[in-house]
C-alpha cells in the first residue's frame, strides 16, 4: 500500500475529506476529529491489517491550547506508518476508547490517562497503570504545567487496584519481585487446582518519569545516554532507536560507516541477549547446564564489546547524527574469530538440547499463543514470529545498514514456548551472518554527520528490532530538547498478551511462560537506573513485616 492509496481509502471510509494531513518521512500524519477515531482506528486495524504500535499523548496547551493523542499504526509490508492524531479540549479531556476494537491499545490508552489526563471512555479496564498507587488523583505529571522536580504529597494508599478473582479460584502471587529475572513485576494467577483460569498484572514499579526529564531538563545528546540506560540488555537498541527518531525528524543524513557500525553493534547485542535468554530459560526450568554453558559462550561477546566500545554493556556509542567510536581495522580479525567460536559452540549446545526430551516436555505445548491473539494484542518480535506472525522491523522498515544485507526471518507456527525458543536459536546464526556481512562491506568515510541541527516542531518515529521485538521511539522536536519523547519497549505489547498464554496452563509452567516472552520489565516501565534520589525511605522491622504479611493473608489474597 502506498501513501496515496491509504489516503484514498481513509477518505472513502470516512465519507468526507480528511481534515488535515501531512507526511514526515515514511509516516503519514492525519489529524482527525475525536468522534471519527473509533471507526477509523477499527477500519485501519481490522480491514487494512495495520498493527497498532502505541499511542502518544502530548500536552500542547502552551502552543495550541489542546492536548493531542496520536495513535501510531504500522503497515509492516509497505514500510509505512500512520499517525491518527486527535486534538482534545482540556475543558473536557475525554476520548472514546479504541480498546474494545483493538485489544492491544489497552495499556497505551491507560498510560495517556495516567500521564496526560485524557480519559478513555468505555475502556474495559480503566484501572491505573503507570502511576504509583499512592500518587494523588487528578495530578498528571506529563502536563506542561507540572514541574519535573515536584514531589506531590503522598495520597492515602488504597492498595494496588486488583482484579477480582473468579468464584472458586485461588489466588497465587508471583512477585512483586519476579523470582528469576530479578525485576519488579507482580502477577496474580487465579487457579483452580493446578490450572490457571485467569491472571492479573501490576507493574510499572520502576517508572521514573524519564520522558518528563527529557522534555524539561536534558538536551538531544544527553537523552541518548539516558535512553541507553532504559535497558541493561538491549540498551544500544534504545539509544540507536532514539537517535534514529531524532534523525528522522530533523532529516539528518547519517554517514554510511556509522550505519554499518550501528548494525554490527545491534546484532552483537542480539547475540548476547539471545544467549542470555537461553541461559535464563534453562535456569527457570531448573536446567542449569544450559545457563552455565550459554553464559560461558556469551562471555566472549561481552569481552569483545568491551574491546570495541570500552564497556561490556551500555556501549555509549551513539550520538544524534552518527557514532562516537570507530571499529578499527585491527579489531576486525578479532571480531571474526569470536564469531566463529560463538557459532560453533552455540551450534553444539543447540544440537545437544534439541533432542533433550526433558526440555521438550517442559516447553512444547506450553504457553500457547494463537496467531489471532498475537495480532490483536499487537505482539512483536520472536513472540509474534513463533505464532506465525511474520514481522521483523529489520526487513519491514529497513534502517541502518539492513537494506544492504541479506537475511532470513525465522517464523514458526506452533505458538508455544518451544517455538519461541527455536526462533531465538535460529536468530543466533542469522545475527552471526549479519555481522560478517556488515564487516565485509564496511564502507569508509566519516562516522558522524556534519550538520546535526534539529529544527523545532518536527515529528519523527523510528523502530528498531530489539532482541525481544520491535522497539519504538517517537520524538516531537522542540527548542534545544524534544517537546515530547515517547518510548515503547518491546515487552509492552507482549505482557498484555500474557493472560492469553496463561490460559489453562499449570501453575508450575507460569514462570517459563512469562520467561518465554523474554520480558524486560524496566524497559517497559522506562526506569532510570542512574538517579538514586528517593522521596522517603522507611525501614520496616521484622515484626512489622510479619504483621503486614499475616494481615495480607487474612485479607483474602490466599485461601490457605
Amino acid at each position, binding site marked *: 500500500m502506498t501513501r496515496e492509496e491509504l489516503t484514498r481509502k481513509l477518505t472513502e471510509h470516512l465519507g468526507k475529506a480528511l481534515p488535515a494531513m501531512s507526511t514526515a518521512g515514511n509516516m503519514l500524519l492525519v489529524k482527525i476529529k475525536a468522534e471519527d477515531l473509533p471507526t477509523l482506528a477499527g477500519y485501519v486495524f481490522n480491514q487494512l491489517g495495520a498493527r497498532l504500535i502505541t499511542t502518544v499523548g502530548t500536552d500542547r496547551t502552551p502552543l495550541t491550547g489542546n492536548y493531542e493523542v496520536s495513535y501510531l499504526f504500522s503497515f509492516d509490508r509497505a514500510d509505512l506508518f500512520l499517525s491518527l492524531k486527535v486534538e482534545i479540549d482540556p475543558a473536557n479531556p475525554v476520548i472514546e476508547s479504541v480498546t474494545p476494537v483493538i485489544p492491544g491499545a489497552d495499556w497505551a490508552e491507560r498510560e495517556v490517562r495516567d500521564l496526560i489526563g485524557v480519559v478513555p471512555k468505555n475502556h474495559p479496564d480503566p484501572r491505573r497503570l503507570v502511576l504509583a498507587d499512592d500518587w494523588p488523583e487528578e495530578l498528571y505529571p506529563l502536563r506542561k504545567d507540572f514541574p519535573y522536580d515536584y514531589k506531590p504529597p503522598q495520597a492515602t494508599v488504597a492498595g494496588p487496584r486488583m482484579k477480582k478473582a473468579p468464584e472458586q479460584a485461588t489466588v497465587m502471587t508471583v512477585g512483586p519481585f519476579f523470582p528469576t529475572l530479578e525485576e519488579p513485576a507482580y502477577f496474580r494467577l487465579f487457579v483452580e487446582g493446578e490450572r490457571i483460569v485467569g491472571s492479573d498484572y501490576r507493574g510499572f514499579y520502576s517508572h521514573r518519569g524519564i520522558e518528563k526529564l527529557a522534555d524539561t531538563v536534558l538536551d538531544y545528546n544527553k537523552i541518548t*545516554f539516558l535512553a541507553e540506560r532504559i535497558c541493561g540488555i538491549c540498551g544500544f537498541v534504545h539509544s540507536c532507536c532514539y537517535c534514529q527518531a531524532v534523525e528522522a525528524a530533523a532529516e539528518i543524513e547519517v554517514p554510511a560507516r556509522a550505519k554499518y557500525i550501528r548494525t554490527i553493534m545491534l546484532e552483537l547485542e542480539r547475540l548476547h541477549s539471545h544467549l542470555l535468554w537461553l541461559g535464563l530459560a534453562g535456569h527457570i526450568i531448573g536446567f542449569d547446564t544450559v545457563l552455565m554453558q550459554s553464559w560461558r559462550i556469551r562471555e566472549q561477546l561481552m569481552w569483545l564489546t*568491551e574491546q570495541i566500545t*570500552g564497556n561490556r554493556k551500555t556501549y555509549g556509542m551513539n550520538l544524534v547524527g552518527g557514532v562516537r567510536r570507530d571499529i578499527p581495522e585491527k579489531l576486525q580479525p578479532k571480531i571474526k574469530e569470536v564469531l566463529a567460536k560463538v557459532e560453533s559452540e552455540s551450534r553444539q549446545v543447540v*544440537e*545437544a538440547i*534439541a*533432542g*533433550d526430551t526433558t526440555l521438550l516436555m517442559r516447553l512444547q505445548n506450553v504457553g500457547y499463543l494463537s496467531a489471532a491473539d498475537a495480532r490483536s494484542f499487537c505482539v512483536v518480535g520472536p513472540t509474534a514470529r513463533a505464532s506465525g506472525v511474520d514481522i521483523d522491523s529489520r526487513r519491514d522498515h529497513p534502517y541502518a545498514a539492513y537494506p544492504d544485507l541479506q537475511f532470513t526471518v525465522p517464523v514458526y507456527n506452533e505458538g508455544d514456548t518451544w517455538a519461541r525458543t527455536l526462533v531465538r536459536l535460529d536468530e543466533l546464526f542469522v545475527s552471526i551472518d549479519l555481522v560478517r556481512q556488515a564487516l565485509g562491506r564496511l564502507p569508509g568515510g566519516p562516522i558522524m554527520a556534519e550538520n546535526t541541527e534539529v529544527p523545532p516542531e518536527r515529528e519523527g518515529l523510528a523502530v528498531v528490532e530489539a532482541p525481544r521485538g520491535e522497539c519504538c521511539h517517537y520524538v516531537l522536536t522542540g527548542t534545544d530538547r524534544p517537546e515530547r519523547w515517547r518510548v515503547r519497549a518491546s515487552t509492552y505489547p507482549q505482557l498484555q498478551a500474557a493472560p492469553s498464554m496463561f490460559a489453562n496452563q499449570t501453575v508450575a509452567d507460569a514462570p517459563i511462560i512469562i520467561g518465554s516472552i523474554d520480558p524486560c520489565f524496566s524497559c517497559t516501565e522506562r526506569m532510570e537506573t*542512574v538517579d538514586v534520589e528517593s522521596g522517603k525511605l522507611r525501614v520496616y522491622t521484622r515484626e512489622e513485616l510479619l504483621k503486614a504479611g499475616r494481615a495480607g493473608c487474612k485479607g483474602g489474597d490466599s485461601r490457605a
Partner: protein
Amino acid sequence: MFISKWKEALICLKAGRVTLPYPFVPRPTAEGFRGQPEVDGRRCIGCGECATVCPPRLITLVDDGDSRALKVDYSRCTYCARCADVCPEKAIRLGNNYELATSQKEDLTMTVNLKMANCSLCGKPFAPERLLRKTGEKLTGGEFGQEAPEWLSWCPECRKTKQAKALGGVEAKDHV
C-alpha cells in the same frame, strides 16, 4: 534422550573451569576501557564544558567569591566519556578503575578549586585565572596582535558598560 545428556556432559567437560580467580587476581580491562573519570586538576581551566555535556549532570560548577569549584560526584557516573571528549585541555580521561564500591559516599566525590581573576576595572572576581590565560594565549598572534586584548581582563558587566559608552555614551547603570 541419553545421547543429548551425553552431548551436554561433553560440552561441560570440554569447557572445563572458566571462572576467573577475581577478586584475588585483578581482572585486566580492555584497551580504551571507560572506567572512573580521572580529572587532572593541574590542567583544568574551569571552562565548564564537561558540566554542560554530562548526561547525568554529576559535574557541577560552583562559584564562591574568588574561587570556582568543579565538583564531580562519581556515584552518579555512567562512564559515557562525554566529558573527556569535549575537554579542550584534555584534563579528563577515563581510567581503568572500575572498583568504586565503598561504604563512604564522600569517597566518590572530587573537587577541583580554581582561583578566580579579578576584573581590572571593577575588581570583582569573574573567571578563573587559567581560563583567561588560556584564552589569551589563543587570541594572541592573530588579529589581536602580539598582546592579549585588553578587554580580556574586564568582567562581562564592565565590557557591556564600556561598549555601551563607546556606542552612544549611555551609562549602563544596571548590571543585568
